[in-house]
C-alpha cells in the first residue's frame, strides 16, 4: 500500500484523499487515496464497476465526492464543475468523445471560448493559427478546417487532446483512449503521450488493455469494488500483479452446477454474421457458431468491441443477421420477431438495464410482469390477482429486496433492478436465456446472487449463455468459456482454465488490428 509514498511530496500535482462517493445505498467509492505525479503517467486499473470512472469524474469536477477532498498543488480544492476544473488545468477526455461532428476542428477546439475579434465577432484567423500550432505540436497533419466527422477516430482523439492543451491543461485524464483505435493509431497516441510527459503534463490513464497500459505507464493504481487495493511504480509490477489485485481472491462467485443432467443442444447458433450498421462491409459478429445444451452454462468473455453484445442482440432478434442460423430445440428462430422468440422460449437480459431493461415510469411489479402479460390475461382483460401472484412469485424466486410490487422501480438498488430484469425474463418460462453482462454495475454480493440464480436455472434444465468482461466471472458457474475477439471466437476453455489464459486469448495485449 505504501509503495507509492517513496516519491517526494512535490512530485504530486493532484491527489484524492479518502474520497468516497455513494449513490443512494450503493457505495461506488469507499475512501480512495490517489496521487497524480507531475510529468508522469498514472494508470488506474480495475474491473467494470470497480469505481474507476467515478473516481475520474470526481477528479475532473464532473461529480462531487460524498466525502473526502481533492488536493491540487498542495491546496484543497472544490471543483464547481468540469469547466472549473478545466480552468484550473485538469481536463478529462471521455471514452465517448465529446466533439461536435458537424463542426470543423478549429470550431471544436474553441467551442465555448471563442476568441473575440474586433466588433464583437469571432477572430477566426487567430483561432485557425492557434489550431495549426497545436497540430504542429502534436505532429498531426490535420487541417484546422476539416470537419470532425471526416476524421478517423484516432485523429478525433488527437483533436480532443489538442483542445485540452489549448486551455493549458497540466493534468489530462484519459478514459479508455485506445478502446476504439487501431494498433498504428495507438502508437501515435503513445508518442503524443510521451511528448506531453516531456513537457510536464501529467496523465491519468484508464484502460482495459492491460499490456498496452503497461507500455506507457509510470505508476499503477488498482481499484476493486470501490477501494484501492494496490499501488506501485512501473518497475515493481507486472501483468500478473495487476490481474491478481484487480480480480482478488476472496469472493466466491460459485462453481459450475453439477449433479443434474445436461440435455440435448437447446440453443444452437451456426455461422452467424452480423454487419456493422454504419459500415456494412465490416462484420461485428464474424462467422460465430455456439451450441448451448439444456442445463449448461456457457460464458462468453471478450473486450469492448469484441462483438458480444451484437451476438446477443442478434440471437434475441433485435439485430438482423446477414447469414447463419439460430435454432432453439431444433426450431429455426431466424426471421421471428423478438416477441416471437420470447414465445418460443428464447429471451435476452440486455446489457444496459437503464436503457434496455427497465421501464423507469412503471412499478417493480409492472416491470416484472411486462414480458408475460399474456399469462395473466383472460379474454380481453388482465387479471389483477393472477398478475400479483406472478409478481410476488418472481420477487420471491429471484430474491428482490423491495417494499412490494407497487414500489417504483427507481427505488431499488442496482443489483435489485438487475434481478427485476432477470426475473421479468424468467417469468416467461424460457428454455434458453441470454444475459449480456448480467453483473455490470452491481456489487459483489448481488453478483453472487445473480450467478446463483443462473446456476439454479441450469439445474432445472435452462440453457444459459452469458457474457462478461470480468475475467473472474468466467471462472465461476460456467461449464464452458468462449473467448471472443474482433467478432470471432478466439478460444474455448473448460472451467479449469486460468485467468491468464483467458486474458491472453482475448487479445487483451496488443490487439491485432
Amino acid at each position, binding site marked *: 500500500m505504501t509503495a507509492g509514498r517513496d516519491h517526494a511530496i512535490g512530485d504530486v500535482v493532484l491527489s484524492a484523499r479518502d474520497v468516497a462517493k455513494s449513490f443512494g445505498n450503493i457505495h461506488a467509492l469507499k475512501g480512495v487515496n490517489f496521487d497524480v505525479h507531475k510529468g508522469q503517467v498514472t494508470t488506474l486499473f480495475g474491473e467494470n464497476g470497480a469505481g474507476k470512472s467515478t473516481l475520474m469524474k470526481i477528479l475532473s469536477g464532473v461529480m462531487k465526492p460524498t466525502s473526502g477532498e481533492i488536493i491540487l498543488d498542495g491546496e484543497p480544492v472544490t471543483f464547481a464543475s468540469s469547466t472549473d476544473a478545466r480552468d484550473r488545468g485538469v481536463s478529462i477526455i471521455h471514452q465517448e468523445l465529446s466533439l461536435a461532428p458537424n463542426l470543423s476542428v478549429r470550431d471544436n477546439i474553441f467551442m465555448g471560448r471563442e476568441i473575440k475579434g474586433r466588433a464583437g465577432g469571432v477572430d477566426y484567423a487567430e483561432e485557425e493559427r492557434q489550431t495549426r500550432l497545436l497540430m504542429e505540436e502534436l505532429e498531426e497533419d490535420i487541417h484546422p478546417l476539416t470537419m470532425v466527422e471526416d476524421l478517423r477516430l484516432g485523429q478525433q482523439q488527437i483533436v480532443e487532446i489538442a483542445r485540452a492543451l489549448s486551455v493549458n491543461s497540466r493534468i489530462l485524464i484519459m478514459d479508455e483512449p485506445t478502446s476504439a483505435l487501431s494498433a498504428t493509431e495507438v502508437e501515435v497516441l503513445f508518442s503524443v503521450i510521451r511528448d506531453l510527459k516531456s513537457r510536464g503534463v501529467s496523465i491519468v490513464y484508464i484502460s482495459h488493455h492491460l499490456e498496452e497500459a503497461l507500455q506507457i505507464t509510470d505508476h499503477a493504481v488498482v481499484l476493486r469494488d470501490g477501494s484501492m487495493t494496490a499501488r506501485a511504480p512501473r518497475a515493481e509490477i507486472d501483468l500478473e500483479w495487476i490481474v491478481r489485485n484487480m480480480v482478488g481472491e476472496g469472493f466466491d462467485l460459485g462453481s459450475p452446477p453439477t449433479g443434474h443432467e445436461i440435455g440435448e443442444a437447446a440453443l444452437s447458433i451456426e455461422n452467424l454474421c452480423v454487419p456493422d450498421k454504419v459500415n456494412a462491409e465490416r462484420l461485428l459478429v464474424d462467422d460465430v457458431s455456439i451450441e448451448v445444451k439444456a442445463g449448461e452454462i456457457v460464458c462468453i468473455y471478450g473486450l469492448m468491441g469484441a462483438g458480444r453484445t451484437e451476438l446477443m442482440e442478434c440471437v434475441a432478434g433485435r439485430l438482423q443477421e446477414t447469414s447463419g442460423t439460430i435454432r432453439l430445440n431444433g426450431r429455426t428462430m431466424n426471421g421471428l420477431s423478438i416477441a416471437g422468440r420470447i414465445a418460443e422460449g428464447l429471451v435476452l437480459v440486455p446489457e444496459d438495464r437503464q*436503457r434496455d431493461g427497465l421501464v423507469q415510469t412503471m412499478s417493480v411489479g409492472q416491470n416484472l410482469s411486462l414480458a408475460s402479460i399474456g399469462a395473466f390475461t383472460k379474454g380481453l382483460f388482465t387479471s389483477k390477482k393472477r398478475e400479483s401472484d406472478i409478481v410476488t412469485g418472481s420477487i420471491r424466486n429471484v430474491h428482490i429486496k423491495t417494499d412490494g410490487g407497487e414500489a*417504483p422501480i427507481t427505488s431499488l438498488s442496482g443489483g435489485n433492478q438487475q434481478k427485476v430484469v432477470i426475473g421479468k425474463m424468467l417469468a416467461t418460462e424460457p428454455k434458453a436465456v441470454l444475459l449480456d453482462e448480467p453483473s455490470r454495475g452491481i456489487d459483489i454480493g448481488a453478483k453472487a446472487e445473480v450467478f446463483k440464480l443462473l446456476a439454479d436455472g441450469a439445474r432445472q434444465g435452462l440453457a444459459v449463455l452469458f457474457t462478461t468482461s470480468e475475467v473472474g466471472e468466467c471462472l465461476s458457474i460456467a461449464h464452458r468459456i468462449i473467448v471472443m475477439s474482433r467478432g470471432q471466437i478466439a478460444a474455448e476453455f473448460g472451467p479449469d482454465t486460468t485467468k491468464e489464459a483467458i486474458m491472453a486469448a482475448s487479445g487483451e495485449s496488443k490487439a491485432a488490428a
Partner: protein
Amino acid sequence: MSDIGASRKAAIPGLTDGRFDIARILLEGRAFFALIAIIVVFSILSPVYFSLNNFLIMSSHVAIFGLLAIGMLLVILTGGIDLSVGSVLALAGVVAGALMQGVAFESFGFTAYPPVWVVAILTCCVGAFVGLVNGVLIAFFKVPAFVATLGLLYVARGVALLMTNGLTYNNLGGREELGNTGFDWLGFNRLFGVPIGVIVLAVVAVIAMLILKRTAFGRWIYSTGGNARAAELSGVPVRGVTIAVYVLSGICSAIAGLVLSSQLTSAGPTAGQTYELTAIAAVVVGGAALSGGRGRVGGTLLGAFVIGFLADGLVIIGVSTYWQTVFTGAVIVLAVLLNSIQYRSGGRKPSGSGTPSSPQAKAKK
C-alpha cells in the same frame, strides 16, 4: 388508478414525510383543486354560472375537447404527439355532412342516403384511416411524430376544404322519407337531461380507462412511452402499439367531429382550428408527462374540464376573448411547471444505476 398513482406518490422526493402532506395533496390533486377554484370564483363573479343547466351546457362544450384529449392522451402516453386531431375533427364533420347529402352513384343512376348510424361508422373509418397514415409514418418510416402529424394537419384540413369548396353543410337534419334523420341526436338531444355529447364522452372515457388499466394493450402503451427499447426487448409489439394509438386518436377525433357538427347542425371545413393545442393542454393540465409513460384518463378529463369551464366562465363574465387567450395560456404554463416539479428526479435517476456510463449512453440515443 391505484398502481400508477402509488408510484407517483413515492416519486416525489422529500414530500413523502408527514409534514409536507398538504403540499403533496395540493400538488397531486392540482387539476381537481383548480377546477373547484374556477367554479367558486366564477360563481361569485356571476349569478348565472352556478346552475345545473349552465354546467350541462359547459359540459357539452367540454365533451368536444375531452374526446380529442382522450385520444391525445393515448398518443402522449406512448411518447408521441398528434397535431392532426383538430383537422380530423373538421374532416370528419365534412365527410358526415357529405354523406348526409346523399352519395350519388352516377353510373347506376341513383343516389344513396345512408342512415345515420352508417354515416357515423364511415366517419369513424375516415378518422381511423388518417390515424393509420400517421401511425405508419411514425412507426415504420421513423418520421418524427411532430412532423408527421403536422403534415396530416394540413392534408386533412385541405381535403375538408376541397370537399366543400370552403363552404359549410348546413342541412344535416336528413329527411323523413329518405330514412336518414336523427343526426342532430348526437349533439342536440339529451338523455335524462344530460346532453348526448357528454354521455358519449363518458362512454369513451370508460373504454379508455379499461384499456389502460385492465388490458395488455394498455400496459403496452405505458411501457412503450416509459422506455420503448426495454418494452421491445420484453416482447411488446412497439410498432403495432404506436400505430394503434394514432388510429384510436383518429377515431376519437372523428367522434368529436360528429358530436360537434351535430351540436351545430352544420359541418364546416374550418371547424376545430387550434383544437389540437387545447387537447394537448388538457392532457398536460391533467398531469400527463409529454415524455410519455405517465398519465391517466381521469386527470385528462379534469384537465379538459378545467380549460372548458375556465373559457366559458370568462365568456360569461364578459372578459374579452383576447384576455381569455392569455388566461388559458397562463394555466397551461402553470400546469407544465407543476408537472416538472412532480416528475423531477422521479423517473430516471442515474444514481440508482450504479453504472456511470449509462446516462451518457442514454443521452447519445
